[in-house]
């Protein structure tokens, strides 16, 4: 029951992706070109890596909107360090450490002071962008200066091998690792338990606070990884890097079945969500429509996607209810007969 339902949920997203792709491929000439598919994967990978992190937070019952701010901050750090000529593993490591620290700060604030995570991460997102502004290169007069990265080792991260960008490979690897962690390990089990019912998990000896803090930390680290690859691709970092990503990543996750409220979904769902959102945006552009209408369609498709998801949730909830009622009735009857006999 459990397994098949999870698969069904993913099948819906997958089917939507296939149908949309088929429509785009059939009605436009450039959608199914190699270069376009590479581009779709590259853009999806950027969102997708963030989604992997966000999925951890969502499953544990939280929400993280600060990813945009963390991307900005860590991206700028990457840029500064890469310009200094540091070897790329060090640059990425530094970014990941800073990203994880940002995530940790989120988690700590939220669990230590019982804050609402929606509003808190929204606010810390601004704060992290502010850190980015502190870290970005400035002229002596204090105005922001763009820096171009010429660090070959680091720029390599933005390149591709055999048509696959390194960011895509990182995305797939991260997703698989995350999926494994979420479904096969104790950590994943505890994350799911925390999101499903924090109080019960606490009573069962799950350290709920630590789980939440850890998941925010993972999210921060994932943002840093995404930022590193993106900065390497764009060869610079700027203050609006990552703007809007906080909401977009959560929306992609929700479309992929990682529900708000916790306990449901996994990294594969987040993966599919990221692919879906990217394909929608990319495909719409192929029609040579006025860009305004693309925004309209994009909004409409997201609406339809979450509506279909809600429809699925309603249907499966009904099924669950029917099953549990049936079970309860059967048992009640059985026990009633027993009890009656005893009397």
């Amino acid at each position: 029951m459990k397994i098949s339902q999870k698969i069904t949920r993913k099948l819906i997203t997958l089917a939507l992706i296939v149908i949309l792709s088929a429509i785009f491929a059939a009605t436009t000439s450039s959608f199914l070109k190699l270069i376009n598919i590479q581009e779709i994967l590259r853009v999806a990978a950027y969102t997708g890596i963030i989604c992997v992190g966000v999925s951890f937070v969502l499953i544990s019952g939280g929400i993280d909107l600060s990813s945009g701010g963390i991307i900005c901050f860590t991206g700028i750090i990457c840029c500064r360090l890469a310009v200094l000529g540091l070897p790329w593993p060090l640059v990425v490591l530094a970014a990941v450490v800073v990203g994880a620290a940002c995530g940790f700060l989120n988690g700590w604030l939220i669990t230590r002071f019982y804050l609402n995570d929606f509003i808190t991460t929204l606010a810390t997102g601004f704060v992290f962008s502010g850190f980015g502004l502190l870290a970005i290169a400035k002229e002596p007069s204090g105005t922001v200066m763009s820096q171009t990265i010429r660090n070959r080792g680091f720029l390599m991260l933005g390149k591709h091998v055999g048509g696959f960008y390194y960011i895509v490979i990182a995305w797939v690897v991260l997703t698989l690792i995350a999926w494994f962690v979420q479904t096969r390990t104790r950590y994943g089990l505890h994350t799911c338990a925390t999101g499903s019912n924090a109080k019960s998990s606490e009573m069962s000896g799950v350290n709920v606070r630590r789980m939440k803090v850890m998941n925010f930390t993972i999210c921060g680290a994932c943002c840093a990884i995404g930022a590193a690859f993106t900065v390497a691709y764009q060869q610079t970092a700027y203050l609006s890097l990552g703007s809007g990503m906080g909401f977009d990543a959560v929306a992609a996750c929700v479309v992929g079945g990682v529900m708000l409220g916790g306990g449901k979904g996994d990294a594969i769902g987040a993966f599919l969500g990221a692919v879906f959102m990217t394909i929608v945006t990319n495909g719409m552009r192929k029609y040579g429509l006025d860009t305004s209408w693309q925004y309209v369609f994009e909004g409409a498709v997201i609406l339809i996607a979450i509506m279909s998801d809600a429809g699925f949730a309603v249907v499966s909830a009904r099924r669950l209810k029917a099953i549990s009622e049936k079970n309860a009735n059967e048992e009640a009857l059985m026990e009633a007969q027993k009890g009656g006999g005893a009397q």
Partner: protein
Amino acid sequence: MKNKNIFANVWAQRALILAVLLIIMLIGNRSFFSLGNLRTILMSIAIYGTMCCGMLLCMLTGGIDLAMGSTAAFTSVVCLWYYNGHGMTDGAFVVGLLLAIGCAVLVGILHGVCDAYLLLPSFVVTLATSKLLYGLASALLKGSFIHLTNTEGFFYKIANTKLFGAVPMPIVIFLAAALIVGLILSLTVFGRRVYAVGANRAAAELVGIKSRIFRVGCYVICSLSACLGGIVLTSMNYITSATTAQGYEMMIMLALVVGGADIMGGYGDIAGAVFGALLAGIVENMIVMLNINTNYSKAVQGVIIVLAVAFNVYNNRKSAGLIAPRKKRAAAAPKKEA
């Protein structure tokens, strides 16, 4: 239950915060305390303050509307587009305004139905509609601007007249909106029921409140306030486009949360919202006055939100008896369930 500690009182806390800020300004830059500057601060918060009043109702019932900015842009574009297309007369303005109001109502209904009836997460829904409305506004203008040029018409005069020759109209509109919403919340049955729906929807249903209709209603009011804000903003700037009021929803949420509203519903009042808007405006003004790089204003706002939320949570938890004095705090019950 007399509380001897005056800082347990919310307004005492707020007064303290204000006092600290004012002292900073007393040292930093005296020109902060001019009448002109007060007007500047009020003008800068007038628009999103007006929009706050609608959003407050929405937040009280546990909803959230991230499409406020786009709604303001779309409705103002519709209004001005009709106005310019039909001779720029006051009659055309009334029709345009009605069209804009109609659009706002439709948007509100869409949000409300998605949230209350289809049980979709409101923040994803409003995020999607904000893209949608941005696209529609942009499509209507073909990616351009639209100017308000008739300086004789009523449309122009909305924002560009002064009450008693001194108070600019946007401030009057903001205060009027706050007053009306405040009266609705404190004096009418509707207001009482809004709080009830926010506090417990199921219980509200069982005392005969159609909670879902209330929530839809609050979304509609929310969109209407966005519409009002958009129209006043257009009149103030003589121009509007799809990017009008972009990002305002964040300022609105900041003001509301700083003013003690809870994003989960049930907490918050209009006095707090006005205080929040004022504080946001003052802080923004201070950043300029103290020669701090304006790019940091967002970061400062972020810090303020976190502090405000922490204060609110502390107050709410204390009133719920969840915080034991001093040493027991660590062992207090786990976070209340969302």
